[in-house]
């Protein structure tokens, strides 16, 4: 299939015609089969998510590789990195290849598996990192996300070991002894609600330790879902010293605060587990620091931490609810809403496509859609606003905190190597 997209603005530039043929963008529109009107639309390189939970294998009632791929395509993504905390854990070549193949079969986004750092996420023994790197899935990112690699010796060895194949360790920074029983951010709201606090220092202490280990080993460290102002400062200092560290922030940490747990958002009640996430929602000061850190480049990328959960895992007491919220279909609108003006279209392309593609080693992604580049891009209507309806999302789960919220910017279409994977709210398969 070939397409002519008329009058589309690439990264906010002057309107041009984009021609898609044989998986790439070409100059000549001769013989194109379908013409789309791109007037008023923005073309961005296809979004790349460094942090997605697809739940398959193990919790196919919450999400599958196929349904998560649909959600990703509808959100403007062309590649997602699937976290390793599945059941069984993605800690062997067999499991990562299974996820990778399921992604290929779905054919909507490139599903790049992340391998576990330790066997069973147990934090005691290194997983077969090399075997996963050598597998068909060619794993480059390793993470025990959901758990922190908190043993400093093991973390050091992991950082050293993956240097052999230019791997990166993506750390869920949480000192477990400081977060025992923690339910939300430690502060005024947790005091009021009687929920055990997750102190900011539990994240900051691990990041501080890890950047020192990264400096010592010369290895690549990636910090998952940074959530505190102190963490931004630690990363800023590390980068200034030349440490090979990158970091991500989630859309929800750019928008929501711990006050939401107390029922501050209209239409919500206190203790609604839809706001339970790990790391927890922090304070307004943290949100401000995260936005500034993203804009000035201290934080490299926006990653969704898309975490689908079945209804029964959220419709319960706060303490028993699983942490996490959906993210793929709302990430770009939240970014536009929170830092869109400050970043501009090129900045958004950088934080949501180019840089995550570079960190993950996904060479076919992150290219500005111009002649000669892969036809892997997304079309956005920046003027459109839409109201989030959990029932209308493609994910198998409905745990979005944005239900009923009106957000700016709508993904009109997504293309992956010339295949249109989403159009007007419908995925291609």
């Amino acid at each position, binding site marked *: 299939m070939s397409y002519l997209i008329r009058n589309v603005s690439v990264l906010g530039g002057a309107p041009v015609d984009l021609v898609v043929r044989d998986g790439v963008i070409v100059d000549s529109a001769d013989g194109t089969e379908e013409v789309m009107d791109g007037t008023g639309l923005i073309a961005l390189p296809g979004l790349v998510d460094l942090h997605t939970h697809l739940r398959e294998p193990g919790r196919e009632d919450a999400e599958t590789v196929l349904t998560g791929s649909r959600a990703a395509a509808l959100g403007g993504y062309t590649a997602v990195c699937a976290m390793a905390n599945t059941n069984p854990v993605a800690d062997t070549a067999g499991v990562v290849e299974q996820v990778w193949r399921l992604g290929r079969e779905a054919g909507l986004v490139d599903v790049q598996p992340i391998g576990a750092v330790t066997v069973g996420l147990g934090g005691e023994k290194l997983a077969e990192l090399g075997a996963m790197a050598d597998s068909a899935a060619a794993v480059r990112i390793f993470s025990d996300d959901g758990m922190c690699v908190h043993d400093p010796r093991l973390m050091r060895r992991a950082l050293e070991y993956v240097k052999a194949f230019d791997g990166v360790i993506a750390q869920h920074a949480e000192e477990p002894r400081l977060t025992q029983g923690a*339910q939300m951010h430690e502060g005024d709201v947790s005091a*009021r609600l009687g929920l055990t606090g997750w102190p900011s220092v539990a994240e900051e202490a691990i990041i501080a330790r890890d950047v020192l280990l990264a400096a010592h080993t010369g290895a690549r460290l990636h910090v998952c879902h940074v959530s505190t102002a102190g963490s931004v400062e630690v990363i800023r200092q590390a980068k200034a010293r030349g440490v090979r560290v990158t970091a991500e922030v989630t859309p929800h940490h750019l928008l929501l605060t711990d006050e939401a747990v107390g029922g501050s958002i209209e239409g919500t*009640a206190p203790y609604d587990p839809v706001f339970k996430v790990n790391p927890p929602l922090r304070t307004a000061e943290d949100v401000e620091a995260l936005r500034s850190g993203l804009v000035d480049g201290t934080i490299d990328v926006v990653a969704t931490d898309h975490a689908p959960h079945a209804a029964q895992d959220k419709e319960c*007491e*706060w303490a028993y609810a699983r942490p996490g919220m959906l993210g793929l279909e709302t990430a770009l609108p939240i970014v536009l809403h929170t830092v869109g003006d400050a970043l501009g279209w090129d900045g958004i392309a950088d934080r949501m496509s180019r840089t995550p593609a570079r960190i993950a080693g996904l060479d076919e992604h992150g290219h500005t859609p111009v002649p000669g580049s892969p036809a892997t891009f997304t079309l956005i209507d920046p003027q459109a606003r839409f109201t989030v309806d959990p029932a209308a999302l493609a994910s198998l789960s409905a745990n979005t905190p944005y239900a009923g919220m009106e957000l700016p910017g709508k993904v009109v279409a997504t293309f992956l190597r010339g295949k249109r994977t989403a159009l007007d709210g419908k995925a291609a398969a």
Partner: protein
Amino acid sequence: MIKHLLSAADLDAVTATQIHDIAAEMATVAGREVKKLPTLRGRTVVNLFYEDSTRTRTSFEVAAKRLSADVVNFSAKGSSVEKGESLKDTAWTLQAMGADAVVIRHPASGAPHRLTHWVHGSVLNAGDGTHEHPTQALLDTYTMRSRMGKVEGLNVAIVGDVLHSRVARSNALLLHTLGAKVTLVGPPTLVPPAFGSLTPSLGVSYDFDSVLPHADVVMMLRVQKERMNAAFFPSSQEYYKRYGLDSARLRRMPDHAIVMHPGPMNRGVEIAPEVADSPRSTIVEQVANGVSVRMACLYLLLGGRS
């Protein structure tokens, strides 16, 4: 009238005083030969207890029965809950059985809030995790009013494991509403600075002895010995020395000041036996007042709306 009683913050001064006034009337029932009123005849009150608490459950049960309600005690132990039934499913079951009020005790903070989404009847929080225990605050303030003649203007010291105490939270909120001045006292590990934001006028002190001479009420909190293992304080002995209420400290309190404790007590850990048993202790009164206050709450939430 409020539909649910989830937090002491749900109560304004007028409502809390109304509950106290009704409790005073209800207290007279206990002195009668037939300790029963027909007020809630035909109404069903479910005691849904996910935690063992003979004291609170019995208090609610006696209160409901004195108002002639039908009482169902639903204990999580040995029930479908142990087989994995969710709170939502349990709520639907209670709803199907026609529960007009559910009194819930639950180890998870906020569970009563969640329950209100799934039942039509009134929900009374009988203690949720480390969050709140509003009827305890009502009975405590009722006890203060009975002993001191008023609540407004009192200096109340709440002493001990504030961090994990639902009683402390509820009392701090209600005492503020009723015009008392509250000071939270304990080691910094158990009285974090964030607690100072619970109400505008809340004081925090780590020096019990400096607070004592100005206190009209000293409310001691239970200190669990396992907190010691979690390094909240070094030893029971050190805790008792710095924050325990012994006879010497009792003597430094003003003559009119009273000693309260929500129970159960750890004698020799947070309170000396002779202090607990002294005439200035209101501990037994608090238990008796609990029934009257809970009768008043049930009456207002159920009878008041019929």
